[in-house]
């Protein structure tokens, strides 16, 4: 299919790898962070790290919204899902995320009406089809996903739906990026930027990275050649001592993003004062809640949620993985107590989590010499 096949060409990939090798400054170690879980997945799946010179190191960032959701909110979701007569809907990736004791899949196995949906619009359809039941959608995701939730709520309001509501866990990408950049333990040379987030918000949102933090960023697509080309663009910026936002993903990303999506988000959401991120702690203005105009659809107002705060498991080092301080295989429980089948940390639950991606695609290719 156009826009896909040509970005998976192996010969072009090898050629790009050669250009990266030629462009990188000998003796200089470059530490580049891919922000988005989709990039992490592509890097491991296509073994892109093997195509890079040893002195170009990729660090996996916090861009998996499932990986950063705290246990307490999962516990709240499970408690809500157990409500009699309530239909709880969520994306498939949420089903296996561990709360303090169980997952939503466990609750479903024990009788809770938990249904996986592909789109929030599917949750709204379920609400239409079940007028006698409360239907809750567990909304999660960065700015890529938030417009679909906003559009769904806008339609629910227009239709006068009274049995549909939403637990809003949407997060925003810039505050955790700032938290990472402010972290003294992190020494990064540049960023591979989140292409699909930028489809919505535009590249403009990331201009603070070069201007305030002196780091280059290249907004990247998700096919293997996209990622390789973005790394090449970053290496060239660093070699030429340039520091700017560059857009590799021009086929869908503009500087200003998608104005219709931004408009509907502004209508439906407002910033939360604070939001808890797994491994990163509480970050101000880093998540969205429903605006007053949509308060009637806010499940956190409609239902009495426990709202408990649960500490991350002590054995789990997801926080350090998310900050790029350690590699997945350097976590003390990686691949032993924590596997995709029995995940302790959220980075192992989501296929795009750094640990799961490495476990699924990379663990046989490299020895755990660093452990």
């Amino acid at each position, binding site marked *: *299919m*156009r826009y*896909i096949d040509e970005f*998976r*060409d*192996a*010969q072009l*990939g090898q050629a790009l790898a050669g250009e990266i090798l030629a462009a990188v400054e000998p003796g200089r170690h470059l530490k580049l962070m891919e922000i988005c*879980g*989709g990039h992490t*997945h592509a890097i491991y*799946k*296509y073994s892109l790290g093997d195509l890079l010179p040893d002195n170009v190191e990729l660090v996996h960032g916090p861009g*998996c*919204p*499932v990986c950063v959701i705290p246990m307490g909110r999962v516990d709240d979701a499970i408690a809500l899902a157990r409500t009699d007569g309530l239909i709880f809907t969520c*994306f*498939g*990736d949420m*089903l*296996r995320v*561990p709360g303090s004791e169980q997952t939503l899949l*466990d609750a479903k*196995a024990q009788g809770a009406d938990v249904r996986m949906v*592909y*789109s*929030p*619009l599917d949750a709204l359809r379920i609400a239409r089809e079940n007028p006698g039941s409360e239907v809750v959608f567990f909304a999660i*995701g*960065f700015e*890529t*996903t938030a*417009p*679909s939730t906003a*559009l769904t709520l806008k339609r629910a309001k227009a239709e006068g739906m009274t049995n549909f509501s939403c637990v809003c866990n949407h997060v925003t990408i810039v505050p955790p990026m700032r938290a990472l950049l402010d972290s003294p333990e992190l020494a990064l040379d540049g960023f591979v930027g989140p*292409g*699909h987030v930028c*489809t*919505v918000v535009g590249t403009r949102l990331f201009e603070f990275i070069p201007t305030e933090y002196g780091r280059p960023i290249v907004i990247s697509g*998700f096919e*293997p050649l996209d990622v390789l080309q973005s790394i090449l663009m970053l290496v060239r910026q660093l070699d030429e001592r340039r520091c700017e936002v560059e857009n590799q993903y*021009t*086929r*869908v*990303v*503009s500087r200003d*993003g*998608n*104005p*219709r*999506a931004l408009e*509907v988000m502004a209508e439906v959401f407002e910033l939360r004062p604070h939001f808890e991120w797994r491994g990163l702690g509480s970050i101000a203005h880093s998540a969205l809640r429903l605006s007053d105009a949509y308060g009637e659809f806010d499940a956190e107002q409609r239902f009495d949620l426990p709202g408990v705060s649960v500490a991350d498991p002590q054995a789990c080092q997801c926080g350090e993985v998310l900050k790029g301080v350690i590699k997945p295989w350097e976590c003390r429980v990686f691949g032993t107590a924590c596997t995709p*089948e029995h*995940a302790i940390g959220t980075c192992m639950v*989501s*296929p*795009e*989590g750094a640990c799961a991606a490495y476990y*699924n*695609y990379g663990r046989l290719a490299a020895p755990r010499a660093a452990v």
Partner: protein
Amino acid sequence: MSARPARAECAPGDERRGEPLGDGHGAPADEHCITCGDVGIVMRVLELDRHAALCAGPDGVAQSVATDLVGAVVVGDELLVHAGVAISALGAPA
């Protein structure tokens, strides 16, 4: 802890990205989830409705896609779709 669900539970087939890099080296089946992977899938418009379009992805599976956020589309357009909603038209950033 529960056993891992079948892949089909993780995300419907139309969110899969399909073929491995060029020469077909042996990568396992793709297993993206739409939120954690920030997945956008390229789909071609087959038919138009008022605020939706019937679109086909790389695997040929057709599904209804909301087009409210990308403005007017015509049959044959290629859209970037996330969670059942088109967020951009390819080749012409919104």
